[in-house]
């Protein structure tokens, strides 16, 4: 419960800090329109890929690509833990 008060308190102080600072200019509507347009194009491309390769295969491809990206840090993290166990004698 103390942790809750601490986090909420910190967020409140941050909120007060933000409330006191002057407001910066908002995002130009052209940029928001560009962002929406880009997301629409990306969504259409994904839908086309799902049609062409099937949703299941695209889901698997996303999983494999994520695995490839995450494999190295996970491997190093696991090896770091294993090296801390003297019985295993991993260098």
């Amino acid at each position, binding site marked *: 419960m103390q942790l809750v008060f601490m986090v*909420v308190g910190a967020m409140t102080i941050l909120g007060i800090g*933000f409330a006191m600072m002057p407001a910066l*200019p908002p*995002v130009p509507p052209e940029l928001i329109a560009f962002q*929406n347009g880009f997301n629409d194009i990306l969504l259409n491309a994904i839908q086309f890929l799902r049609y062409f390769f099937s949703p299941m295969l695209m*889901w698997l491809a996303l999983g494999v*690509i994520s695995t490839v990206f995450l494999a190295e840090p996970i491997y190093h993290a696991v090896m770091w833990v294993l090296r801390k166990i003297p019985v295993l004698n991993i260098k």
Partner: protein
Amino acid sequence: MWSRIKFLSITLVALGLTTVIFSSPTSAWDGDLPACENVPDYTTALQADPRYNADTISFVVFKRSWSGPFLNGNPGIALTWNAEYDYLKIQISGQSGNVSNVLNSQVDNALIINADGTLTDTGNYNFGVSDVTCITAVHNVVYDSTYTGSTSYPDPLNVDTGTIDAPPSEPCDWWDLVCVAQKIYLSVSSGFTNMLNAFNEFVTNIGEIFVPGADNEDIFTTTFNDLNTTMRAKLGFLTYPFDFIGGIINTLMTLVDSDSKVEWHCGLGGQSQNGVCAGICAPNVLGENSVCLDIAGLEKKFPALWTTIIFIARMVLVIGLIELLRKKYYSIVKA
């Protein structure tokens, strides 16, 4: 020599996976649904509700994970099974052989079980197999004389309040490479899903250590939302890069969020998507008429050519993914 053997093995696995992908356009479900644990006490509210009918509501289906949104955050769904299409009977009998088709169906008169055990009437509702974590019978299930299910499966007449397991899968014949490849594929995908679920549970449990009690979630949510609103108003254009990246991630998540992994088709049969099947259109090119690049028209007009093209494309993709994994594996091991 070894490199040739490895190449041959990879090619065989790729061919097997590709064959599986083509032989099972829908995601076949071949595992046991786990027991319904830690579900809210729904039985009292369900049986006390005037909409509850013991003759028609037989089963309760719970979502795979309650952490994400499921029909406005409700964790469970009570089903009124249509007597004409007794889907679960088909599932238990194993005659369909594909529970995805069964569970991707529309359900009539669905009652949603809320987290506090109350009920909400939603009328019709579509849901997919990936939504389901378990099925629980709320009373004895009586099957009529037309039931022709597998005799190797425990007698479904004995199903009482509890979990209904899937029928045991038949072992593959030694010569049936498609069956073996399908088993391998299902094992890998099941293991991957279980790994993700375990990781999700781990993160949830870690979160619960630091955020004890469900009431505190509201406090955090309200405070965070207030801070987020204030921060956005003050930081203005500085938040744009984060919104841009967030938008891209949200769009990419459509690959994961979709319940149904059923293959799409623009020809006869299958599940069609209007956005894809209509083609890419440029409006008002010829007067007020649009000009469309109808890529999906190939499937309708030249189905044999279409089948060949997607076979090659999918095989190339699968081989590419396996090669990607192989290269990553050796780059890590040799490093």
